[in-house]
C-alpha cells in the first residue's frame, strides 16, 4: 500500500522536475542561466488560478478533453513499472491496455482540436494522427515480440529479456531502447519531431492542437503531456535496471535514469535542428525498422535453434 502511494506521488510530481531539467539543459547549451527547474510547476499553479475561456464554436467535447487526457495517462501509468520496478496493476496484456488507453486520450485531443474549427488545429490533428498510425503498429510489434520471447505479456517482461535470450538479449534491449526513445520524442512532441518552444502555428504539431485551451484546462493538458513523456522514460529506465535489486539501489538508479534521459532529450533539442515535416516521417519509420529487427531476432531465438 505504501509503495502504491509512493509510486503515485512520484508519478504526479516527477514530470514537473523532468520538464524543468529539460529546460535547464537547453539553457545550459545556449549559454544561458535558465529558469528554475521548478518553473513548470509554477506555470501549472499560475494556470490553475486563471480563468478558462471557451470559444463559442466549441462543444462539450472541447470541455471534456483535458480531463480525459489527464485521466487516461494516469490510468495508463498504473500498468507500467515505476519506482520500485513493479506496476501498480499487473494484468495480462497490460501493454495493449496501456497503448489503447493512451490512444483514447489522443483520440479525444484530436477531435477536440477539430471541434474548435480552426484551420491550424485541423492541420495539427492530421499530423498527430499520421504519426500515430506509424507508431502504434511498431510499438505492438516490439512489445509483442518481447512477450513471445519471455512468455509474459505484461510490462514485467522488460526485465526478463536477458535471462530468456542470453546471447542476443543485449541486442534486443538496445533496439528496444531506440524504439522507445523515438516513441518518447514523438509522444512527448520534442525536437526533431516537433518544436515545443516555437510560436509558429504553421509548423507545430502538438502545441497547435491546444491553441484554444486556456486556464486550468491548459494546465491539465501540459501536466498530462509531461506525465506521458515520463511514462516512456520510466519504461526505458525499467529496461536498463536489472531485476531483483534492493530498493536502496534500484530507486536511485531509476531516478538517475530519468535524469539522464531528460538531459539527453534536452541535449538533442539544443544541438539538432528540427526535421522538415516530410523527413519526420522517415524518422518515425526508424521505429518500425527497429521493431521489425526485434521481431526477427526473437523469431530466430525461438525457432532458429
Amino acid at each position, binding site marked *: 500500500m505504501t509503495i502504491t502511494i509512493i509510486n503515485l506521488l512520484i508519478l504526479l510530481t516527477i514530470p514537473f522536475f523532468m520538464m524543468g531539467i529539460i529546460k535547464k539543459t*537547453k539553457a545550459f*547549451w*545556449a*549559454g*544561458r542561466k535558465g529558469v528554475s527547474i521548478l518553473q513548470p510547476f509554477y506555470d501549472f499553479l499560475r494556470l490553475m488560478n486563471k480563468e478558462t475561456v471557451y470559444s463559442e464554436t466549441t462543444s462539450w467535447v472541447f470541455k471534456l478533453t483535458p480531463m480525459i487526457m489527464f485521466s487516461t495517462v494516469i490510468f495508463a501509468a498504473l500498468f507500467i513499472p515505476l519506482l520500485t520496478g513493479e506496476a501498480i496493476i499487473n494484468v495480462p496484456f497490460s501493454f495493449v491496455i496501456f497503448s489503447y488507453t493512451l490512444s483514447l486520450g489522443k483520440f479525444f485531443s484530436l477531435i477536440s482540436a477539430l471541434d474548435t474549427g480552426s*484551420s*491550424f488545429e*485541423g*492541420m495539427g490533428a*492530421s499530423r498527430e494522427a499520421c504519426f500515430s498510425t506509424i507508431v502504434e503498429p511498431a510499438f505492438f510489434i516490439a512489445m509483442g515480440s518481447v512477450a513471445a520471447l519471455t512468455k509474459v505479456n505484461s510490462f514485467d517482461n522488460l526485465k526478463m529479456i536477458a535471462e530468456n535470450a542470453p546471447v542476443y538479449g543485449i541486442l534486443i534491449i538496445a533496439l528496444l531502447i531506440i524504439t522507445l526513445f523515438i516513441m518518447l520524442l514523438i509522444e512527448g512532441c520534442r*525536437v*526533431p519531431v516537433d*518544436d515545443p*518552444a*516555437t*510560436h*509558429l*502555428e*504553421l*509548423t507545430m504539431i502538438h502545441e497547435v492542437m491546444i491553441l484554444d485551451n486556456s486556464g486550468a484546462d491548459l494546465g491539465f493538458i501540459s501536466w498530462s503531456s509531461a506525465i506521458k513523456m515520463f511514462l516512456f522514460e520510466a519504461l526505458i529506465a525499467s529496461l536498463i535496471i536489472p531485476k531483483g535489486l534492493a530498493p536502496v539501489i534500484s530507486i536511485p538508479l531509476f531516478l538517475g535514469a530519468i535524469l539522464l534521459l531528460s538531459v539527453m532529450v534536452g541535449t538533442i*533539442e*539544443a*544541438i*539538432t*535542428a*528540427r*526535421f*522538415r*515535416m*516530410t*523527413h519526420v516521417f522517415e524518422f518515425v519509420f526508424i521505429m518500425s525498422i527497429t521493431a521489425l529487427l526485434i521481431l526477427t531476432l526473437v523469431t530466430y531465438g525461438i525457432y532458429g535453434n
Partner: protein
Amino acid sequence: MNWTVIENNQKINISQIPAITIEQLRNDYNRLKYRLIGFFGKKEEENTRLYVVLCDDNEGKIYVSSIVFSRDVKSYEALTKDFPAFHNFEREFYEEFNIEPLNHPWLKPLRQNQDKYSFFEMKGEEVHEVAVGPIHAGVIEPGHFRFMCQGEKVYELEIMLGYQHRGVEELLIKSKFNNRLAESVCGDTVIGHNLAYSQVMETLTDTQITDKAQIIRRIALELERIAVHIGDMGAISGDMAYLMGASIFGVTRTLVINTMLEISGSRFGRGLIDVGGVNFDIDETMQEKIISMLKEVEKTVDKVTKIMLKKSSCISRMERTGIVTKEQTQTIGAVGMAARASGMMLDSRIDLKDKFYNLDYIKFNASGDVHARFNLRYLEIKQSIEQIKDFIKILKEYKMEKLKVPYGVISSNSFAVSITEGWRGEIVHCVITGKNGELVRYKVKDPSFNNWYMLSLAVRNNGISDFPLCNKSFNLSYCGNDL
C-alpha cells in the same frame, strides 16, 4: 528623345522630363530591358502625370520619362500582363489616382480598402484554406496571409498588406528636412532610408557634404547590414529549432548594435544622419573599438556558420526549401539580397559606381533557396566587415574635415532620385518640387515592395510548415511596403 538620362543623386528641371505615351513606354521597356524603379503619379491641375523611372544597371544610369493622362482618360492598357515587374506599381497607381490599368491580371487593393479584397480561391474536395494574420503569434508587424493547400502542400499563397499604411509620403512632403521621420519609414532600415532621404534632399539643395561624413554614413550603413543579417541568421536558426544558432547569433548581433549605440546614442543609429552630414564623429578610440568588435563578431559568426553549414539536420531544412529561380526573380523585378541569392547581379553599391565602395559581386552557389539566402547573408557580413575596415583606414585621412555643412535652399521645379543599397536591397527616394521650392511629390520605394511576391513564389509547392522558414529567409518589411 523619349528619356532623360541622369545619374544617382542628380537633379533635373521637370521641364527636361519628356512626355511619352503608354505604347512608347511599352516598346521602350521591351527594347531597352532596363529595370523599373519608379512608377508614380502626380496631380497637375487638370491632368495626372505618371512618372516612370528606369535603371540601367550595367551603365549605372537612370532614365526618366513621364506620361500625361488628361482628365477624361480613366484607363489604359495594363503593362503588367506583358511585364510582370509592373504588377505592384500599377496597383499602386490605380489606388492613388483611380486610372485603371485594363486587363491587369491582379488588380486588387494594395494598401487601402482591405475589406473589398477578394481572395483567390481554389475549388476541390481536398483543398483547404489556411488564413494567418493580420495579428501573428510573434511580436511582428500585421499582415494577412492566405494559403490554398492540399494536405501539407501549398499551391498558392496570397499576401494582403496595408495594415501599416501611415501616409509616410504625405508626411514627408509636409515637414521639410525631417530626418527623424525618414528614419521611421521602416524601423529595421533606419540608416538606409535616412541616407536615401538625406541624399535626395542634399541633391535638391545643392549641398556638397564632406567626404568624412560620406564615409561615416557608409560605415553606419554597413554596420546596419551586419547587424540585421546576423539577427536574421539567428531567426532562421530559431525557426528550424536550432537553439545554438538562435542564441549565439542573438548575442553577436547585440555586440554590433551596442557599438552603434556608442557611436550615435541609439542602437539602430537613429539621430546619426542629418541633411548636410552626420551628427557624430567616429574618432580614433571609436575606430579601434569598431575594429576589435568586428574581429570578435567575425570569429563567432564564422564558427557558428561553419558548424551549421556542416550539420546535416540544418542543411536538410534549408536546401531546396523555398526556391525562387533566377528567371522568376528577373520577371517579377525582385531586388536586393534575396535577388542576389537567386543569381541576379543587382547591387546598387556596385552598379551605380559609388566612389567610396570597392566591392565585387560575391561568387557563391546562388541556388535561390533558403540555404542560398542564409549563406549569402554570411558572405555579405564578411564582405561588409572588410569594407568597414577599409573605410576606417581612409577615414584617418579626413580627420580635419567637418562633420556637417549647412544646407541651401530647395531648388524649384526639380526632380531628383536617390538610390541607396540598404541591407534588404535598393531603396529609392524620388522627389518633385514645385515652383516655390516646396515638395509636391515624395515617392519612397522600399525593396519589400518588389520582393513580397517573391515570397509567394518561394512557398509554392513547399510544405506549409516550411513557410515560417521561407518568410524569415526573406525577412521583408510590412511598413516598408505599406508606407
